């Protein structure tokens, strides 16, 4: 096991790393002062690769948390092949998250997407220098705030039932189908089915908008996340919407109450809400604020 002295001369370090075919994996960045204090005082979490410790690269008023990774796994071309192996990816994604969480819990950090690789410390430092203003603005925007996820699930059967109950037209068609001759009844039932599916989708969209508006009022930012086609919950419900909110720590109770109230109101219509978090602000880390 190699130990890298953190205070080692930067030029030597870069040379050593290159000689070993190593690069730097970047986890998150934040204020130099906050992060360097943590590196001095705390025992740090593991990095994505066993045997490599977390390190800090400092430049301007910022610092980035990094660790050494082998280019044979993380180099261009190599990493795409590695990512195709779910076991390899999942283990490292978990380590990435744990490292970022550790810092997000006690400092104001900007989480990076998995797999941000630089070849040398100098390049990381140059990136911090060059983007110091924009990155500093993101750190400021995230200060004292956390991300909370809201997943909305729909019980398809309960929702469809509610929709037929609520729609006079569908009720009328259902009665007609019962009285109709077999051929016509079949066509009517097909039409009802398709209308119910349309209505279900529309209702899910309405609920997603409600969540965004009502919970957004108790948050500093909201983002809609993509839902994969045919995505289901572990209970087999349809995923109606996934949203992320940037919530000030001091406003969390207000946010939670808004979520509970909306969940209670929507439960009779077949919707179930789930709150996850707190997360590092992955969905609000972009340098250009997209939601205001």
């Amino acid at each position, binding site marked *: 096991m190699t130990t890298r002295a953190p205070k080692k001369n930067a030029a030597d370090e870069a040379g050593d790393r290159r000689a070993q075919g190593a690069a730097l994996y970047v986890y998150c960045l934040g204020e130099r002062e906050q992060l360097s204090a943590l590196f001095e005082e705390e025992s740090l979490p593991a990095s994505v690769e066993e045997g490599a410790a977390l390190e800090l690269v400092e430049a301007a008023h910022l610092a980035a948390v990094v660790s050494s990774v082998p280019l044979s796994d993380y180099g261009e071309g190599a990493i795409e092949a590695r990512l195709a192996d779910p076991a390899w*990816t999942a283990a490292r*994604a978990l380590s990435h998250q744990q490292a970022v969480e550790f810092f997000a819990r006690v400092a104001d950090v900007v*989480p990076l997407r998995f*797999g*941000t690789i630089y070849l040398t410390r100098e390049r990381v430092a140059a990136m911090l220098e060059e983007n110091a203003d924009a990155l500093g603005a993101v750190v400021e925007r995230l200060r004292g705030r956390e991300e909370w996820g809201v997943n909305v699930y729909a019980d398809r059967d309960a929702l469809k039932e509610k929709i037929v109950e609520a729609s006079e037209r569908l009720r009328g068609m259902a009665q007609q189908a019962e009285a109709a001759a077999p051929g016509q009844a079949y066509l009517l039932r097909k039409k009802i089915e398709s209308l119910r599916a349309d209505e279900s989708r529309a209702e899910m969209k309405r609920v997603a908008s409600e969540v965004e508006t009502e919970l957004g009022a108790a948050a500093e930012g909201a983002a809609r996340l993509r839902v994969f086609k045919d995505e289901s919950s572990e209970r087999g419900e349809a995923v109606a919407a996934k949203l992320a909110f940037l919530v000030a720590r001091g406003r969390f109770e207000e946010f939670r109450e808004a979520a509970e109230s909306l969940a209670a109101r929507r439960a009779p219509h077949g919707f179930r809400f789930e709150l996850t978090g707190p997360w590092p602000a992955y*969905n609000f880390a972009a340098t250009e604020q997209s939601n205001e």
Partner: protein
Amino acid sequence: MSSEEFEIGEDELSLLETLDHVLDRGLVLAGEVIISVADIDLIYLGLNVLLGSVETVEEVLGERARRELDARLSGGPLPPARGGAEGSGGE
């Protein structure tokens, strides 16, 4: 539903949620190694198959990932909380 089954459901969820956050979101910086994210759907597909059960996770991910999972579940740094909005969970 036994409480044990319920726990397993929760673990899977937080693991998938974690992967979703880390792989698809977060600040994108132009690193020196440019990773093509075009295949992210395929990665998810593979992960979904892999994460069919927590036993599979232990089997396939091996000792290290299992330790990491244990750390999360035993209240390691910031385990994703669940519930709350249904009036069930919440601290």
